[in-house]
């Protein structure tokens, strides 16, 4: 899979086919309407919640110092609008070998909630194929003004080519979808006030044995 365009610019709802670079990102605004965002948030509030976990050497662990949020299991019907938004964006950023979409997962960050810097793609053989072959990470922010939250910036650490990283705050609003390389270091800064809702998904390589049967994005 090749990811082409230089990152950074914010874009209108998907029409053309911009592609994120290997170390960059692209944002599409208003991929999901505010009404659908509100409905998804309502579904998150009703759905079963469990503390967000992190993956270490093949095992899911609770580590509140690393990640403090809850994950919510939505019904396929409630998750459908976000899943469709992700698929729509995935087709625009992906032009390589067949890939599958893992997600969406729905997260809620309370005051103090955060996800310290991490990369979504693992290089640990103990982790699953889907995690080891993640190519693109997708994040959809579901709220900004109503309900409001303060803090909780999604920060991407872009390599500058000289061995240094440049932190960039992703300028997201409710309904925006950002696509970035799954190799990119990124984090969610602590929420200062309110609740931050988001959905995440990843594009990963179709496993060899499934490549003939899988329905790629």
């Amino acid at each position: 899979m090749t990811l082409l365009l230089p990152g950074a610019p914010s874009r209108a709802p998907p029409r053309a086919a911009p592609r994120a670079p290997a170390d960059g990102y692209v944002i599409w605004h208003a991929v999901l309407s505010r009404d659908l965002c509100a409905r998804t948030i309502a579904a998150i509030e009703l759905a079963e919640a469990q503390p967000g976990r992190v993956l270490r050497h093949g095992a899911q662990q609770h580590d509140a110092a690393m990640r403090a949020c809850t994950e919510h299991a939505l019904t396929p019907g409630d998750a459908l609008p976000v899943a469709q938004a992700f698929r729509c964006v995935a087709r625009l950023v992906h032009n390589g070998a067949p890939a599958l979409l893992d997600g969406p997962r729905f997260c809620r960050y309370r005051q103090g909630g955060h996800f310290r810097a991490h990369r979504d793609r693992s290089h640990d053989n103990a982790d699953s194929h889907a995690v080891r072959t993640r190519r693109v990470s997708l994040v959809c922010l579901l709220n900004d003004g109503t309900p409001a939250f303060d803090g909780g910036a999604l920060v991407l650490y872009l390599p500058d080519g000289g061995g240094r990283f440049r932190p960039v705050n992703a300028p997201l609003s409710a309904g925006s979808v950002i696509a970035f390389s799954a190799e990119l270091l990124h984090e969610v800064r602590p929420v200062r006030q309110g609740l931050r809702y988001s959905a995440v998904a990843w594009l990963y390589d179709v496993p060899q044995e499934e490549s003939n049967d899988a329905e790629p994005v």
Partner: protein
Amino acid sequence: MLNLYSDANERLDLKVCRNLASEFRPELFAMLRPLHLAHLVEELWAPLCAAGPTVSAVALEERPWPPTGVGARRLRGFCTALLVDGRQAILTPHLLAADQQSNVGLAAALTTVLFGQLAQQEVREVGLWVNGSSSFVASLLRRHGFAPGEMRVVSDGCEFVLFVAPAETVLKELRIAEARLGDLLALSLDAAAIATVAGYHLGLQAGIAAYWAGQVAQTEIYPGLIDWAALPPSGIGGTPGPGLPDIEQPIFGS
């Protein structure tokens, strides 16, 4: 409208702590060294934090990875209050890192966080030691709800008067009582509020600059080092004294 510091401010973590000098000792040295003020860790903040209960609001920049260990946090600014008699807090104006000197949004956010913590501890009044000869800072403080109180101290040959105000009033006068921290950090305020906030915080910064430079006689603000409740009493208890003599009869001329 974004300002010079908006993006970096948005990534800051704002916290409160009870003992700045011990909880953030290496970060304090690292922040103060470029300002040529590292000696103040030992001369000011360590004794201040050891002398009585204090509360500090701190702004931290955290490195992405690893999140712990030496160098994991960088202090970008802080302000401190000495708690006195359970009802007043004597402030030491904010200090910002060398590259943050005009970061008014950060200064305002630190003030808000500090006052918010004081309110949680039911400390309603804040005070600043102001040089008795000050016109600049005295008028600045009067404009933001402060008034000179009864408490006075003499240090380094100068008399300092405690200017006191309800913390809530100060935030209202600064027009930031209802502002979100994110808006303060980004200075997403109307122009008049930005001017007010900037005037207050840069005024305090200028007012205490002589103290930081070691010129105490010229400082308009003395740091909140002196706990007035621990000062010596004013004299000793007296007695009613001897009874008054009978009123002398008037003397009439013959």
